[in-house]
């Protein structure tokens, strides 16, 4: 059994199946994205017990009895997470393919470090590739979310 966004999930997929396949193909969660299949780009980032991990190369056996949070688990359309609000307010992205993973990592950062410096934000997001060059506004959006959460 795996808990995904607080829901217990039983899967009949083979143990070695990457978690991302379960999320996207079986559960129809569109948030986490496939970018490389090798854990190198961060597009598929999810939280495992609150810690960011790439899901494209994470076998199901490794997350048995663990808590998984995806972008969909951070907030909803009706009640977005402060980060989602901030990213929308800042137009923080260009094509947006990297954003799901970045939002997930940023949420873990804000859990541990509610008022992160620019350097801390960059360090927390350093595993994530953004090809469009939206980095500046993504950093601004994380700062904005931190302020909103603090205020």
């Amino acid at each position: 059994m795996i808990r995904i966004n607080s829901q217990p999930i039983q899967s009949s997929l083979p143990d070695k199946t990457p978690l991302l396949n379960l999320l996207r193909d079986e559960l129809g969660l569109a948030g986490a994205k496939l970018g490389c299949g090798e854990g190198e780009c961060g597009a598929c980032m999810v939280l495992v017990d609150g810690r960011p991990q790439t899901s494209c190369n994470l076998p199901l056996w490794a997350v048995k009895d663990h808590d998984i949070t995806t972008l969909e688990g951070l907030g909803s359309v009706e009640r977005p997470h402060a980060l989602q609000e901030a990213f929308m307010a800042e137009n923080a992205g260009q094509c947006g393919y990297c954003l799901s993973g970045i939002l997930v990592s940023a949420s873990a950062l804000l859990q541990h470090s509610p008022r992160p410096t620019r350097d801390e934000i960059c360090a927390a997001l350093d595993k994530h590739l953004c090809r469009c060059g939206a980095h500046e506004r993504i950093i601004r959006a994380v700062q904005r979310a931190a302020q909103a959460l603090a205020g």
Partner: protein
Amino acid sequence: MSTSAPRAFTIDRNDGRPVLPGNLHINRLLSQWLDFSHPGVVRVFTGKVELGQGILTALSIIAADELDVALDQIGMVSATTLEGPDEGMTSSSISVQDSGSAIRHACAEVRYLALQRAAQAHQLDILSLRVNKGRFKSAEGQDLGDYWHWLQDLNLMREYEGLSRPKPYGELTLHGRGKVPRVDLPDKILGRPRFIHDLRLPGMRHGRILRAPAAEAQLTNAQHPVPTALRDRWSASGVQCVLDGRFIGIVAESNLAADSALGELREAVQWTVPAALPDMHQLADFLRTAANEVTYPIQQGELLHAGDGVSLACDYLKPYLAHASIGLSCALAQWDGTTLQVWTHSQGIQNLRDDLTKALGLPKTAIVMRHVEGSGCYGHNGADDVAFDAVVLAMALPGDPVRVVWSRADELSHAPLGSAHLVSLRARLNDKGHITHWHHELWANGYSSRPGRAALPTLLGASQRANGQPIPLAINPPLAAGGGSDRNAVPAYNIEHTHVVNHRLTVMPLRTSAMRALGAYANVFAIESFMDELAHASGQDPVEFRRRHMTDARSLAVLNAVVERSTWWHLPREEGVGHGVAWARYKNTSAWCAVLARVQAGETLRVLQLDVAVDVGRVVDLDGVINQTEGGALQGMSWTLKEAVHFDRQQVTTQSWVDYPTLRFSEVPVVTVHVLDQPDQPSLGAGESVQGPVAAALGNALFDALGVRVRQLPLSQDHILQAVNESA
């Protein structure tokens, strides 16, 4: 069989018909742009597609402002062959000019037609009517209905006539002001399905392609490339193999099964790969000596021969670059025996359909194309190729939709590349330190192999089928469309004797095509590095040296703006810190851009700040312009400091993000963008003006910091050390 004539790079406005604004000229019916049949919603059609550049947002601003409707009343409908205009490609930073101008004028006309009906019915002066959120009011505040009421029995299948001019800038309330929310981003931030990767069709099956490792690779056992035992085992588990020449695909019931079968296929199939590629360590020699065809973008005044009073001569080299989209190329196709449906993130669904007709022998009318958003592509990546892959598999399995997705390795090694590019510059200065002679010679492959432009299809899979023809050589758009490898090769400076020689390679060992800014990136890097070298060689200030050679007020204004508004440019440099400047006017006819870079050169090169000023004429979406400029600057910085595609004599060896590092958050400098306000000037695209100037500004800053000139891109540790050793 219907064939499609190759598509030109520019609109033919001398076709005997009255010239209409933008792409209205080739899509003349109002109904091709606007639909009011859904009460409360204005459907705005565009043939342009969202690539992450924010075009849907910019176009919705244009429509909302012209019609006086709210942004949330606009429903943008992007490219499909079922309805809307044919606008060819979304490329070259011309969407706001061509599509935006058409939408603006179509909206002005429909607004007039609707107001005219309301005014006549109420016997009021049309000029006294006001519109707010699509509702009409008299001067006294009387409600007079709305667009949907007055247009319900008006057939918009009528040609644009120019009945009313668009509004003056002063009456536009959304243009160039503040931050308009992006149309597409909320879905992507909230995790709602929006990308083509998220599209699921009923009964959908999953395809993969085993790509030949190189263009000239042959199957070692062409008769039976896939072992019978493997195929038997697959057929028991629902995996089908589609084999056509060197095109090998599989279709399975799930992504997991498809990935697993592809792994087995890769193990089983043997290739013979000839040593057909150049030596990547001797790239300049290859470019200079390869067979080529010569054109002369400018031949003005005397020719400056090597060794004949040359003040300075330098060579600059750019490697092959990958588009390196974060998302994988992906497409869906379905064939029912008569109609082929294709879902694609191609930049040009019409061009792609043209090439599908050539490759398949199907008439255009049998093919329905729909654009679905992909990740940023930055030019011609694998989007078109993967669509053809999906089509071949779907046609082999009639009925079921087939989804194909490429791998990261495919993305980096089989998608078209940005060409390697060598520039050799020489110049003569007079005794007053003014340039009198300039000679620019360049060698590169063409910068376009996009579908739709050649007699033969340019799709990778089509070239690999049994009856396939080799992919046509990459060509260059004509200078009237901005040029290709010669884009920005003509210096935008006042120089009496100027010659540019363009060698387009007529061999193409690595497939090249359009990558953002085309040749402008390498040419501006070379020209603006060389200007810096000339300034230093003659003891002149690099900014002043450029100013004295500039030819127009807007060039001067953009350079002055970036220098005057910088908070650090005039400050003394600390140890190891260098400042660099560069500028260009994209295509010499489009947006102006000037860049200042501040770098720290120590163990590694660290970029501290990038200041950018742009003049894109009238700004439609201010935050969109800033976003494109920031992003372009950072992507340009990534190309310049880090990127090069690697290959051995047989094949591309760049296969993963480890092989092809791109810019990371920890390397991002502070980027400051100044947008010059020019509301009375035509809008110019904002996506590609900055990459060339950023490259040169970084090289110039590196020189300022170290006193060493690096002329080979990327400005990597290796190339910096090499330049240090050579100068010692």
